[in-house]
């Protein structure tokens, strides 16, 4: 084992530096976007459209730097706990990713296949991702929810959720 800490070992376990990176990137992005704005000089608008974005960008970059320093010195943001949350294990990507997948599937399907289908996929997929294993029952519940809300919105509020593939049948 080397006696002097290498950069790699110092960075290990400091995933919070990613937050600092994000803050810094956001700050730079806000700055660059505001830089591209035109500022017609106007006596009555001395502040202009760039001032506040520059201030926000500055705030973000300063926080990014301070946070990085804080994390490297050993500071740690406290992860949120809760009744349903068990922090003893690292993030369970096998659950999160399918959940995100169900959400994305809904986004892709909603206009094309219609709410009834995409909403079913969303609910069913989410329940499955989170651990429900009663496939048939969950599927039926998902379908019922989607159909109920479809009609509820249409009849009650006149909002026509997309019918997609089921157009004409519903």
């Amino acid at each position, binding site marked *: 084992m080397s006696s002097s800490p290498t950069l790699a070992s110092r960075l290990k376990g400091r995933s919070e530096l990613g*937050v600092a990176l994000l*803050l810094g990137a*956001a700050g730079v*992005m*806000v700055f660059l*976007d*505001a830089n591209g*704005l*035109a*500022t017609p000089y106007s*006596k*009555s*608008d*001395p*502040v*202009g*459209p760039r001032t*506040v*974005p520059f201030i*926000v960008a500055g*705030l*973000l970059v300063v*926080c*990014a730097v301070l*946070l990085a320093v*804080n994390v490297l010195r050993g500071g*740690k*943001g*406290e*992860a*949120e706990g*809760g*009744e*349903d*949350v068990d922090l003893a294990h690292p*993030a*369970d*990507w096998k*659950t*999160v990713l399918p*959940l*995100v997948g169900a*959400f994305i599937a*809904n986004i892709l399907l*909603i*206009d094309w296949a219609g709410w009834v289908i995409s*909403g079913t996929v969303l*609910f069913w997929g*989410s*329940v499955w991702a*989170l*651990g*429900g294993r009663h496939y048939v029952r969950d599927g039926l519940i998902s379908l019922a929810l989607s159909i109920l*809300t479809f009609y509820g*919105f249409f009849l009650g*509020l*006149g*909002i026509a*959720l*997309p019918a997609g593939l089921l157009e004409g049948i519903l």
Partner: protein
Amino acid sequence: MDVFSSLMDGFATALTPMNFLYAVIGVVLGTAVGVLPGLGPAMTVALLLPVTYALEPTSAFIMFAGIYYGGMYGGSTTSILLNTPGESSSVVTAIEGNKMAKAGRAAQALATAAIGSFVAGTIGTTLLAVCAPIVVQFAVSLGSPSYFAIMVLALLAVTAVLGSSRLRGFAALGLGLAIGLVGMDSVTGQQRLTFGMPLLADGLDIVVVAVAIFAVGEALWVAAHLRRTPLHVIPVGRPWMGKQDWKRSWKPWLRGTAFGFPFGALPAGGAEIPTFLSYVTEKRLSKHPEEFGHGAIEGVAGPEAANNAAAAGTLTPMLALGLPTNATAAVMLAAFTSYGIQPGPQLFASQGPLVWALIASLFIGNLLLLIINLPLAPLWAKLLQLPRPYLYAGILFFATLGAYSVNLQAFDLVILLVLGALGFMMRRFGLPVLPLILGVILGPRLEGQLRKTLQLSAGNPAGLWSEPIAVGIYVIVAVILLWPLLMRLWRKARPGRRPLLPANSGAADYSD
């Protein structure tokens, strides 16, 4: 008194079976719509307008009033139970309310919200009935300088809720301000942070942001760390509010009303700021400030009263002056116009019976909502006992539905996902959520009012203190900023006196 007898006549009209039925429909519909994030009373009333053309104006307005108040109640219910704020004015309720629900005190949270809303709604409606003209005169006298001062005060209050790590709190605030920047600049008309996407030109809706960060973020977070071994089930506890709860709630109810009503009546006030100011005030004045962030009942009682009082406040200038101060009031105004009725100074004189019936139905709607929500509170709380997969799938389902139904565009769902991921990251690394939300709400207003003030004074900075209210608020801001210094001087001058502020006031927080 004339007002009293007119009001009694109004009750007589509002309590006819037909009108009562419409009140019930309105209230139920409003609650249902308030529960869904994205869809709000404004849109509901707008969508129902054509349907109500066949009705008597009185009945139609009674229904609209029910929808409006119902929306406020419904938004609180999902805020507390599912951390999914249904309305922008219920966002602050979710902070403490959801924590209470998670600790098994959902019924108490719902009860204090319902009763507080009722108290505030009743007081607010009474103020509306009795002193509408005075309120309106005051409201109209306020201009951009005063609004800017109020925003500065609110910004200062944000520093009280930065959480245990000031640095991370400011980082969250920065992110919130950045999100608030997205959209068109109101003075020069240029797009900021839209990256050429026309769908971002109108900015990011605060409810979509709140739902994404609160509900979707939480769903993702829970998915990542779902408790596989069953914890011993926390008992739902007593379904009613205990004596302590009452004692701790009643003053926040009144203070919340005091915050909410004026802001609702102010044209640029809105219902979000008073809920936030109420929250910060309750935190400062509470005897149990350490509970804030973990389920303090004052943090639900105050903001809930504030948002319902604001709802009543909003109707005041609408009826008295034909001046709508938010989207719902604007739609109701359009409804009035389509019936050929012009609200304004003459309204009370020319359409007296209609107006008094409307006011009476506000009282009735308020009471109905209390009756509906209070006994049902323990039942709603049972919702939390759903198996986790169904509960969180349901949250995602309804969040998606609500967000989509506003514009019927899948893009809003993409925003929901991206900001949900942000919410996930914030939970992982301990960035507090409230400063971010406040950044989104306050940022655009701070900038807008500042630049408008300077425009109105043709660039002269003296415009900032050109209104008496503005000056008064800056004095308050100065006092708050200098409070620690003043305290030290006071104590030096009078040794041995007890400090006036509790020792653990926000000013004593230090970041790690």
